[in-house]
């Protein structure tokens, strides 16, 4: 049994303690915006926020989490930075297949929360999620647009 606070709601979830947060979100809570890509914290498709920090949910067992920790998924994003990122993503048509974009947006939103005007180096350091379609340049442009930095 795990007690988790997800997108502002605290709930008890009857799962084995070693179940990764990713599969709890997807299969127990029904939040499928967070994606499975690798299961070994390599690709970032499962990126969520825990207390504002990016976490790769595929490699986070629920036993390591407490109800006090605030888990936010793509479905629960509502900060001004998140809205700016999503708006920029739409304006620039960033996604192609889109499968990695939940994770990309979670990573980009956390970046802007820390660095409202990120440098190119800070963007490169924060954005380590894989995109096989190759949307990296539009991701970079989207972050800059959301941050109000001239591309």
């Amino acid at each position, binding site marked *: 049994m795990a007690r988790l606070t997800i997108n502002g709601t605290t709930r008890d979830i009857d799962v*084995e303690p070693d*179940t*990764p947060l990713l*599969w709890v979100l*997807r*299969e*127990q809570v029904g*939040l*499928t*915006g*967070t*994606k*499975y*890509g*690798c*299961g*070994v914290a*390599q*690709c970032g*498709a499962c990126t969520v926020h825990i207390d504002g920090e990016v976490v790769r949910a595929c490699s986070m067992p629920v036993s390591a989490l407490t109800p006090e920790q605030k888990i936010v*998924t*793509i*479905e629960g*994003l509502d900060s001004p930075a998140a809205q700016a990122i*999503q708006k920029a*993503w*739409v304006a620039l*048509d*960033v*996604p*192609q*297949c*889109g*499968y*990695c*974009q*939940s994770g990309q*947006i979670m990573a980009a939103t956390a970046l802007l929360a820390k660095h409202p005007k990120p440098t190119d180096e800070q*963007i*490169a*350091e924060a*954005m*380590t*999620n*894989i*995109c*096989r*379609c*190759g*949307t*990296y*340049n*539009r*991701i*970079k442009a989207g972050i800059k647009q959301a941050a109000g930095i001239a591309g």
Partner: protein
Amino acid sequence: MTLALDVSRRGFLAGSAAVAGGFSLGFHIPMSEAAAQGAAPEVNAWVVIRPDDSVSIRVARTEMGQGTITGLCQLVAEELECDWAKVSYEYPTPGQNLARNRVWGNFQTAGSQGIRQSHEYVRKGGAAARMMLIQAAAKEWNVSPEELRVAKGVITHAASGRSTTYGKVADAAAKIEPPKEVPLKDPKTWTIAGKPVARLDTVDKTNGKQVYGLDFTLPGMLNAAVRACPVYQGKLKSFDAASVTGMRGVKKVVAVGDNAVAVVADTWWRAKTALDALKVEWDLGANANASSEATAAMLREGLDAKEAFEGNKAGDADAAIAAAARKVEAVYSVPHQHHATMEPMNATARWTPERCEVWCPTQNGEAAFATAVAASGLQPTQCEAYRINLGGGFGRRATSHDYVRQAVLIAKEMPGTPIKLIWSREEDMLHGWYHPVTMCKLTGALDANGNMTALKMRISGQSILATVNPNGLQNGRDPITFQGLNPGGAEGRFGYSIPNLMIDHAMRNPPLPAGFWRGVNNNQNAIYLECFMDEMAHAAGQDQLEFRRKLLGNSPKHLAVLNAVAEKAGWGKPAAPGVFRGLAQHMGYGSYVAACAEVSVSAQGQVKIHRIVAATDCGHAVNPQQIAAQIEGSFVYGLSAMMHQEITIKDGKVEQENFDSYPCMLLDEMPVVESIVIPSGDFWGGVGEPTIFVAAPAVLNAIFAATGKRVRNLPLKNNDLRKA
């Protein structure tokens, strides 16, 4: 690759009425939205117009990120003259396509063909619908259709001041006999097509709402995890179901065909956990000792083998080389690569003795359907396949629907229960249809004046058709091997005029299946040819641009894209300190492409790609901003492979199981990409793949310019570029 259903058209049509219900829209996510709107008359197969004037355009090709939905809708909407702001799309199903005598044509979405091979009939679909809508209004007002004008879905009769909308006349239009002559607009007059309009499918991809195959659910659904024999063509010997049946959530353990086993559970995580604990014995079969070393030895033997399939021949290359003032020889190699779509393979199936349905990400709904029919043991009229959005295709979901077959076989073991099968990333990596492995020996001749008088190009290695469609071989020869090297043809013509030429292929097929991988054989062919042309230019002591220009005199479109990148990149002018340039050009999938890359290499051998200027002439540019996106994306895919990726085999098994051993390019490695789109207008070329061809050779040639080291064995990570 082709749909082969053993069913007579007459029998199928007769039986299909009950299935298709005339044209009930059935259960499908995009379609169900249309159905929820109530009466939504289709004007014709391509166009549905609702009373509120919203327009739904049917798309037969599959969206996998390349923007084909938006592009195809632009083409229909252009001729339809509807309001673009009111356009949405829906996917017809393969069952409906068969029931309607394949009214939507080919569903195959591969070979960069989405737009170039359907532009004419989709535009005619839009134009015919417009003519019928106008005629319906004319009939209602009792005037001649010629007196009516239409703009953005509003039909007006200037003489009487009357106007109506598409939504109001759609019902009547649907009853009108379709026109026989359907003229199309001059592309010069386009207002929707040819413009950089926003994609139709972006918003849901930014908020988690887009449903992919992996996200799909049905009431009462169970989840399956599968493991196939890790050695190609090996078999399942036995498994000990009792070892996992008591585990939480586990419902059933089943053999899947003769080479795999699956665990079905309430959740996928529990199914996978049980599968990991399951005791399985394999019969590894004849490939148990296969290795990359053995493959390499086999390919090396082919480099000088007597027998080979001819691809392109002119003059007498051997004689010209023997008589040459200077001879240059080099051997290159390109390894197996995996597609590694972000979303692993998956499919959901529900089977009963009367009906089989699958919901799956696929690049070819018809092939997915045919696979489901074959696996179900039922008639086509009893089956349906629904396309779910896919997290990347790159050819994997066009080459094989093995995952659909498995899902149906598992569902057959639990009649009536929907089963969602998901491959783990490891399963996906181990059971790919890999980019073919090849080597190439090139021999070039220069005369005393530095003119290139001969080229021999011996490709040794794997044939894709030999794996996926042996019936497509022509007396054993795989014509696809010669992509971009052919003497002629709209698909991909060898651009250089070299008087003595021999390009041939010694087919050597290793024990690992080959598949269509974005760019397909153009990728290694462009690396081999364009890197070697660079070697020839250096050997001749000539500028690499000028050397190519002299040989492209009979290929003005090849030359135009090369000139365009050279000019924009500033070829011939100094680059930034420490930065070096490399060029490449190629033609494939109907388009002409070129690139100029700028790289620097540190003393420690670290390569930094700063900028790539890319040009494409794809004939008609339906959506320039999406073409730019495809150029950038194709570079990431091609350069990931060039720099980091190889699939190797040891003891019969693929050694790379996840992204830690099969790395992909990340944002910090991404160069600035400057795209030049030159639509010269008299043909239709592809966009999704062509620019991938030139990314790797342009960068490799720039690396040579920077280091004096010629990288001939890929990937780059296996090469030492440190300063000596």
